[in-house]
């Protein structure tokens, strides 16, 4: 029994780590925001959930007993992650030059989100307009 639980724990740990890492990896690897956001918001959440489950199991065997309250952490995480993801997408949408217009128009190509380069260009333009910079 202990062995089975330990093996389950190890499995959950490995899977959890994998997904947490995967989420971050997607963040780095993928080329645009709307691609990247899929990684961390879901994979990482799941990964953390696995690790928490592993923790519950581990504690039940090696620690002070069964502490299901750690699962509450997962509950909160699953409750809040969509809010965060939704808001970040809204934010990205609001910075997009070509936003998916009205409903029912089907797919749209992805637009460009205002980034550092745009801001640099804007600032340079502003400085040129002001003529000089003082500070």
């Amino acid at each position, binding site marked *: 029994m202990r062995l089975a639980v330990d093996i389950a724990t190890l499995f959950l740990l490995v899977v959890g780590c994998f997904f947490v890492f995967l989420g971050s990896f997607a963040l780095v690897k993928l080329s645009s925001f709307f691609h990247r956001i899929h990684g961390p918001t879901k994979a990482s959440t799941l990964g953390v959930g696995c690790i928490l489950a592993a923790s519950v199991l581990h504690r039940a065997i090696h620690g002070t007993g069964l502490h299901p309250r750690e699962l509450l952490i997962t509950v909160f995480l699953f409750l809040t992650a969509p809010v965060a993801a939704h808001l970040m997408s809204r934010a990205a949408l609001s910075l997009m030059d070509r936003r998916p217009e009205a409903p029912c*128009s089907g797919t749209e190509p992805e637009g460009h989100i205002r980034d550092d380069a745009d801001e640099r260009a804007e600032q340079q333009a502003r400085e040129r307009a002001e003529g000089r910079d003082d500070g």
Partner: protein
Amino acid sequence: MIARIFPSVPQSITVFVFWLLMAEDASPGTLVLAAFLAWLMPQIAARLEREFARIGEARILLPLGAKLLWDVVVANITVARQVLGPEDRLKPGFIWIPLELTNIHGISALTSVITLTPGTLTAELSADRSHLLVHCLHVEDPEQMIREIKQRYEAPLRRVFP
């Protein structure tokens, strides 16, 4: 009368269970305290919420949750492949999904579900709350996608949040 004492029974139950879980204890003292909080919390929340969610068929929540969990795991593996594979094979895109759900709590729940399922992400609710903008990491057939979402998640949710 009951409505005044427990303006939201679901919430009271949630809090009660929540407290017992947190305290990891079922002594009389804890139970009394949990009951007290189960009464108190909705009272306080009532001052902040516009309305409490009305739950229709609560019993389909459990199978829905299980289905969701499974979907999450499966879809995560899919996404893992997509992420680890070459990016140019992806066909991402935005899709407007028409909604039949009118209850805002239902819409919220659907949004969460869509977001939690890998590969899809809700980005916006149209102002008239009739369409949901979803971003898909890889979508071959938008219509198929819309159908699947409506059937798999929206339908049960309409029963939960009538």
